[in-house]
């Protein structure tokens, strides 16, 4: 009996954290980029934090955001601003992309530039035909942004929050929705071959 109790306690204390979602971006790289950056923002919100935050999202303008995060398992955001160009390399970006490779990840947008300073990626995680995650990478000369959203989300979901939280109404509007859905469907179709419409 006592053995069982000790075993349960052991599992609770040591094994349970192992099942928690690991940070999606390489920790060493994050530190290096943060050291090189003049400004950086790191937001890490796991399921528990999202649940907690949603209890305080009671204002009228929070409604859409609350609806979106209620389905999610986590939101991980990293932004780095640099004083001068050349503060990150193509290898750094590849190191981040490597976390989002596998048969479930479908590249929707894959834009490459000569010095990797204008690269863009949007990958969707497709599980049984359902979107279960999204990874966005946007590199600019003096700025680098990574976003990983774990859980059911589509870019057009974010159109609903336009006009809220200081987000201007715009790009991800309902007009763009049809096109994105078409792209997503095509990308999912191509996922078996490992190539998206954008890559072809």
């Amino acid at each position: 009996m006592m053995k069982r109790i000790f075993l349960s306690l052991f599992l609770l204390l040591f094994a349970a954290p192992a099942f928690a979602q690991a940070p999606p971006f390489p920790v060493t790289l994050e530190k290096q980029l943060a050291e090189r950056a003049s400004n950086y923002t790191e937001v890490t919100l796991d399921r528990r934090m999202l649940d907690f935050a949603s209890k305080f999202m009671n204002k009228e303008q929070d409604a859409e955001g609350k609806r979106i995060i209620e389905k999610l398992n986590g939101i991980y955001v990293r932004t780095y601003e640099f004083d001068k160009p050349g503060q990150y390399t193509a290898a750094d970006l590849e190191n981040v992309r490597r976390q989002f490779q596998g048969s479930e990840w479908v590249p929707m947008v894959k834009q490459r530039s000569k010095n990797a300073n204008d690269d863009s990626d949007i990958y969707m995680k497709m599980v049984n035909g359902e979107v279960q995650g999204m990874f966005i990478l946007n590199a600019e000369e003096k700025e680098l942004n990574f976003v990983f959203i774990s859980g059911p989300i589509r870019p057009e979901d974010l159109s609903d929050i336009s006009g809220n939280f200081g987000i201007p109404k715009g790009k991800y509007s309902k007009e763009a929705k049809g096109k994105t859905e078409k792209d997503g469907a095509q990308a999912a179709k191509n996922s078996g071959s490992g190539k998206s419409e954008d890559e072809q």
Partner: protein
Amino acid sequence: VADFDPELENNLRDGLRLRQPSEGFADRLMTRLPQHETRRRVIAWPQWKMAVAASVLAAAAVGGYAAHHRQVEGERAREQVLLALRITHSTLDAVQQKISTQQDQTGTGEVQ
């Protein structure tokens, strides 16, 4: 005043005359008084009440602080969510703009 009964007056004077108590009266009186009980009531009850009141106040203060702390943490978490959504939206927007610019430049609608 003239009708005052002299016998009554004498009786009253006699009755109200100052007399010395018998020896040991004070001690006898004190032993008969429920002295300890009274003292305990006077001292013990307020202490008990004060302890309860202090506990209630302490619990209320701790509870109030915990609620305030939770509210502050909740507001902070909410701000983090809004910031994350804002950055996500602007990052998507930036990628979309790049694609649009490239499509305009190539005229093909393809992204390389």
